[in-house]
């Protein structure tokens, strides 16, 4: 009996207490014609040794997990410190539910409060919620929020947003008939501001930009601010939190809602999840924000304590009038992000951003010396688009060297042939970068 708490004799005692002779009779209320009446067709149960052996073998088929990784595109191979892994593995954290009973959940609540604080400082926003599912869904929620605030139903996207964020946002918009239009990107992989501005009309609630954008490029964010102000639309900024170790927070260029993927903050790649979406906004919009929020208060003895607050926005109270349907979020991933930020601290966090950026710059500067690598736009932070001849062949060579050289952009943009989006973190060594240059730089 796997994971069952009773001794067999206790089951008999319980049946006796209930005055019944078999467990089966507890299911007499289920009509026979909806009962399964056969055994489910599932593989035989495995004991722990078999299970571990089998899963270890399956995990080894993920050969890419061992390769030197230059793929980014929304998920980044930053180092996850042992401290983070050890602390999020404390079962008082990971085996608890959402902190509904505040008096016995101060650990989770205080950590979320710290998360809200650090993310507010990072993004420059007044309030940050306790997390959303991931970067793409936090953007989806942001467009719904903006359309509700503005009572309009169109949102204009920069053409240089992560293509899968655009798809996700469209799915979120589909329910309420929100029209999502996207401008193009320029030949230097930047937002086409003129075109974007033209797409904004009276029915537009918000514009959405990514900083840095999907192609790694540092955008001319003042343009976004100008358009948002001139057209009286909200500015939604999707950002990579690591870059905020060096870059100005989006509040500085007028962001009304900041969202993004929090995975780079202490969360492993995990084939795309679990990650965490973050969302911050201005104080005046906080009652329109989706998701859980923790507030400071006191207990009956007047001591500082924390509790879920502003719940009148949420589904369990407002039902169909809630700001969002979100209930469970990504609390443990947000805890990892919190511990990561605290542990790296002021200097360590800046260093991770700086090293990632310096590695990128090193690659760019070395690549410029080679004939066969074209840098599309060098004004980038931690990711850069390159064009090389014979990409497929070179990609294969890289794979043979146990290296993932980047993301082939034709996955999303058929017109971007022979182009790679390459990401650099503090984990990449000088030698690894040189090897990549060697593979890509041959004629």
């Amino acid at each position, binding site marked *: 009996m796997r994971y069952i708490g009773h001794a067999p004799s206790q089951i008999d005692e319980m049946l006796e207490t209930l005055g019944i002779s078999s467990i089966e009779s507890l299911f007499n209320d289920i009509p026979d014609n909806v009962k399964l009446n056969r055994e489910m067709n599932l593989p035989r149960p495995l004991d722990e040794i078999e299970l571990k052996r089998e899963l270890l073998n399956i995990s080894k088929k993920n050969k890419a997990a061992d390769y030197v990784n230059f793929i980014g595109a929304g998920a980044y191979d930053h180092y996850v410190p042992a*401290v983070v892994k050890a602390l999020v593995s404390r079962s008082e954290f990971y085996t608890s539910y959402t902190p509904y009973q505040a008096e016995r959940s101060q650990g989770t609540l205080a950590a979320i409060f710290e998360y809200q604080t650090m993310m507010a400082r990072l993004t420059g926003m007044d309030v940050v919620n306790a997390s959303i599912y991931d970067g793409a869904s936090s953007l989806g929620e942001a467009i719904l929020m903006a359309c509700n605030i503005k009572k309009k139903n169109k949102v204009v996207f920069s053409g240089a947003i992560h293509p899968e964020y655009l798809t996700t946002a469209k799915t979120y918009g589909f329910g309420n008939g929100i029209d999502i239009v996207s401008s193009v990107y320029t030949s230097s992989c930047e937002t086409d501001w003129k075109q974007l501005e033209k797409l904004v009309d009276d029915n537009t609630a918000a514009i959405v930009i990514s900083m840095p954008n999907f192609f790694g490029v540092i955008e001319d964010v003042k343009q976004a601010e100008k358009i948002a102000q001139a057209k009286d639309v909200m500015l939604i900024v999707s950002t990579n939190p690591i870059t905020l170790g060096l870059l100005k927070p989006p509040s500085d260029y007028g962001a009304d809602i900041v969202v993004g993927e929090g995975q780079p903050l202490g969360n492993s790649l995990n084939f795309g999840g679990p990650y965490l979406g973050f969302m911050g906004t201005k104080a005046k919009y906080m009652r329109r924000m989706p998701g859980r929020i923790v507030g400071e208060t006191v207990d009956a003895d007047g001591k500082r304590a924390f509790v879920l607050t502003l719940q009148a926005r949420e589904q369990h109270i407002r039902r*169909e009038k809630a700001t969002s349907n979100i209930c469970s979020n990504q609390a443990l991933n947000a805890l990892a992000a919190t511990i990561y930020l605290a542990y790296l601290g002021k200097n360590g966090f800046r260093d991770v951003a700086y090293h990632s950026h310096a590695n990128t710059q090193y690659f760019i500067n070395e690549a410029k010396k080679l004939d066969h690598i074209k840098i599309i736009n060098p004004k980038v932070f931690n990711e850069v688009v390159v064009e090389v001849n014979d990409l497929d062949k070179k990609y294969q060579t890289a794979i043979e060297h146990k290296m993932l050289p980047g993301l082939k952009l034709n996955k999303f943009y058929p017109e971007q042939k022979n182009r790679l989006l390459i990401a650099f973190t503090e984990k990449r060594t000088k030698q690894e970068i040189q090897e990549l240059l060697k593979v890509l730089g041959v004629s």
Partner: protein
Amino acid sequence: MENVPLIFEKSRKGKEGFKLSPLKVPEIEVSKTLGEDLLRDELDLPEVSEVDVVRHYTKLSRMNFGVDNGFYPLGSCTMKYNPKINEEIAAMSGFTELHPYAPEELSQGTLEIMYDTQNLLAEITGMDYFTLQPAAGAHGELTGILIIKKYLENKGEKRTKIIVPDSAHGTNPASANQAGFDIVNVKSDSEGLIDIEALKTVVDEDVAALMLTNPNTLGLFEKNILEISKILHDKGALLYYDGANLNAVMGIARPGDMGFDVVHLNLHKTFSTPHGGGGPGSGAVGVKAFLRDFLPKPLAAKNDEMYFLDYDIPYSIGKIHGFYGNIGVVLKAYAYIRSLGAKGLKEASEIATLNANYLLKKIEDMFDAPKDALCKHEFVVSCKNWKEEYGVRALDVAKRLLDYGFHPPTIYFPLIVDEALMIEPTETESKDTLDSFADALRKIYEEAKQTPDILKSAPHATPVRRVDEVKAAREMKLKYQG
């Protein structure tokens, strides 16, 4: 007792935790590479040592309570034991270090797990296809309702309403609203089941679907489910299954056989993955074959040579997650299903139901509760009589249970029951635990009669005393301000 600590108060200028070696590549001037006007001023993060960090979060963890600490009968949440081996498996580097855009040939392990999990869940629920993309139950609901919307639109039908029972979880109406539907509530009858006559009067050609959980939120099996299904389907509407309560019926009855067209499961409930203090979960969605072409992209698939991500889904609603869902959570659910097999899962449901009925029997005399009723994996009792006779509320009972070392049940849900305590013991709890919980409740019942103030001022033995929610909502201190 002291203030709950915050990491910011440990910060001392110059302290360091994590530190990288000096750069091996050339130093750069960020004012040149990024531009002077884009550089931020100082970033105000804590300056703490590694020991500070470890002690602080260890201390915070001890102010928490999880399934590993004790009984956690939180109704509708299925707080069963979270097997340690599943944590170990999900932490294997072959899984954790895999990038979502790594080449498929080099990601065969995780793709195999995804493919197999889709099929295992289909067999368990009687559905045809599953997507693992939704990250939680509510996310699954949104996905499922959008699938229904797209399907109807594709048929050229413009249906505007979704029906939810008055006992439904708040996410049901909220998700339907987020998918652009109007909500119609249908009431429960005196037994706590959907009122069939009331249902008939609201089902018309404008109804897209009924959202239902079975057993329902009162822990009762909707025994008229086939009739309900017929009422909906006869009018061209679909039936949506909120799988939060699947823990009662695994291997016994399947939503697919009850007439449901779309289901979501909470892998973080029935399939034992830990709740993480509020996520990550996984809200896998299953559909009948006629809805396959509307699922989000991509699905894990398999051809003669290998596993791959199938983007060929003609009428797909698009994407609901940036990548493929909470795959690390899916892995734990997969490991759980492989550990238990068909017999083990059925036994889990049987014992979960036995435990609920046993505990109900042990405590029902103290509450307004349906006497001798058969519940499934959970049940709801009302503290209305406690309130009327002794002036104590469900909230006070919950807080006092904390003093006895138990996590309280869900309170004030479902909304149709006054002063509700919703109790879900799960199969992993022993008779001894159930007995001591029942004993504690009985002691609290006596306290309610004799010294009700002990309840009203509870908890007394927790890291903090009762917190002031009103003050939090009024002052709105949502971040640390020094």
